[in-house]
């Protein structure tokens, strides 16, 4: 394993340095933020309690900007790392015409590809795993009283790692198909946008949606479910549409204020009925999505191996 790792470092040292330093740097920021926010809550309930102890979203003003930026970068990291490390593996060799020598010298092209991909995959997995844990801890520390559920689904935990693996496989396959680094990178960026949008749209399709209880819904403030539909239940039990329900609630509040009350009688108001996937079922979604992404990655690596075996090396 050391020999292919050394070869990968020699051939892609800039890309490795960027991904490893960038990924671990981002993870360090996330760990530090998580530690900082947790330590602020340790004094809660004592005379030296921090102001954060009083709020549902305790760190919005103190840590919000840094956490938001780190979460955005964590969401981009798997795509950036996958493309930067994956695309040049075959495309770089073909473009520089070194494949002409490397492929005949190795026992088989598939073995050559495996030797080139393995260390890159290992490094990418290691960095993304550290980042995913750090991002998860940071997200949980930012909202200490909530079940995170679907919040920042793609930028923390296993989904982040699986995206990196799929994009790496996509980069390798594109590089093998196109044989040029920059065009493969451009097409890879476009496909990553498509992949990201597609996975976002598919998020609430992995398990069937159900009508949620009031605690499971987004109004409970304790969890972040994936909501697929909103309706309202009238006091007499009739179910009405979201728009109609919101108009009735607005009118009730306006009438109450006109009558000199702070708010209308809750018993007269329609209650929201959320359909979707509760935060507690997020693990099930992650498992299914990860299995699908794993299968997609294997398919893309297989495609890359097939192309490398068949294509001309120049």
């Amino acid at each position, binding site marked *: 394993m050391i020999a292919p790792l050394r070869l990968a470092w020699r051939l892609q040292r*800039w*890309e490795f340095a*960027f991904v490893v330093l960038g990924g671990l740097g981002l993870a360090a920021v996330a760990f530090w933020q998580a530690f900082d926010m947790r330590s602020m809550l340790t004094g809660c309930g004592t005379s030296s309690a921090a102001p954060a102890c009083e709020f549902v979203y305790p760190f919005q003003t103190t840590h919000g900007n840094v956490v938001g930026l780190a979460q955005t970068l964590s969401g981009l990291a798997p795509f950036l790392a996958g493309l*930067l490390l994956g695309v*040049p593996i075959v495309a770089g060799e073909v*473009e*520089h015409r070194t494949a002409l020598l490397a492929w005949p010298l190795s026992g088989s092209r598939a073995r050559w590809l495996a030797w080139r991909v393995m260390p890159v995959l290992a490094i990418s997995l290691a960095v993304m795993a550290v980042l995913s844990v750090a991002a998860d801890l940071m997200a949980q520390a930012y909202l200490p009283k909530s079940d995170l559920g679907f919040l920042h689904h793609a930028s923390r935990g296993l989904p982040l790692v699986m995206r990196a693996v799929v994009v790496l496989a996509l980069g390798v396959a594109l590089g093998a198909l196109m044989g*040029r*680094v*920059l*065009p493969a*990178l*451009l097409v890879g960026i476009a496909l990553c946008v498509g992949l990201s949008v597609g996975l976002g749209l598919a998020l609430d399709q992995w398990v069937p949606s159900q009508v949620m209880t009031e605690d499971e819904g987004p109004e409970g403030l304790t969890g972040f479910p994936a909501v697929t539909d909103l309706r309202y239940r009238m006091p007499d039990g009739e179910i009405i549409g979201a728009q109609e329900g919101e108009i009735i609630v607005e009118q009730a509040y306006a009438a109450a*204020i006109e009558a*000199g009350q*702070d708010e209308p009688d809750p018993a007269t108001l329609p209650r929201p009925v959320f359909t979707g996937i509760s935060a507690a079922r997020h693990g099930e979604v992650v498992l299914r999505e990860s299995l699908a992404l794993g299968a997609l990655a294997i398919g893309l690596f297989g495609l890359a191996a097939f192309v490398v075996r068949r294509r001309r090396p120049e």
Partner: protein
Amino acid sequence: MLSSVRLAWRMQRWELAFLIGGPLLLAAAAGFVAWQTTVTLAGLDACYADNVALSASCRSLIQWGNALTALPPILEGATVVAPFVVGILLGAPLVSREIEKRTAPLAWSLSLSRARWLAGRTLPLLIAIAIALLLLGQASEAMIRATAPGQIGFPYFAMHGPLVAARAISVFEIGVLVGLLMGRVLPAILVTGLVVAALLVGLYVMRDQLMRAEATWVEASTRDLSGVMIYDSAFTDDTSGELITSEEAFSRFPEAFGIQGSGMPPGMTQVYLMTPPERYPVFVAREIGALALVSVLVGGLAFWVIAWRRPDIG
């Protein structure tokens, strides 16, 4: 010149098709949205002018109008990102690829001078970038004018007009210089990205400081607030003209800010600390000036570097 254009196309047809064609497509899409929004709004005015039930064609026009409203945010976002993607991906590989593929030793020695060679390689691309991004900036401006009521001001900064092209040209120049210094395509793209991010943060901080320094207190009710950048709000005493902060007003007049209050303390006028949209062209001109200076300096440095750089070191 024609041979330079032909050479640029032969060497970078993928990148040019993607990176010049992309902004032109975006420009066409923005122009289409601007045109269709104007036509649809005129049609809707006619629909609502008749005080009768909406016809089937009016209802389909409403649906079309709703569908159109989803596009401007996407196109505005793409217009902000486009100069960076185009500049980095066309600029950084321009010379670094020649060095990496070892064609630079032959190309540089065959041309009359290295400076002329560099000018011949950069000029056609600069012209193509300027034309494509100027068209994109103008189309985006037409779209924003058609879709957003009121003045175009600071909320739409860098989403329209000549600033889009100025940013792309500067980023391209930086990419050329970094590629020339590094001599490898992918590392040059990464480093250019980092340098441009630093430049962008610097410009943002400078602009923000200038805007805050030039902001003035203006009576809230006297003007249209579209396109305005508001930094703070306060109240002035109508008799003494004394400025009191919002926090002070909340504590002095709690009844005015209660649920039944008007939100306006008696004998007070609300004022905003704001940079009005009339100042917007000045800030755009300043940023274009700063970017032009960066372009000239970086371009000059590139000509100096190519005169002494070895053509074969990666």
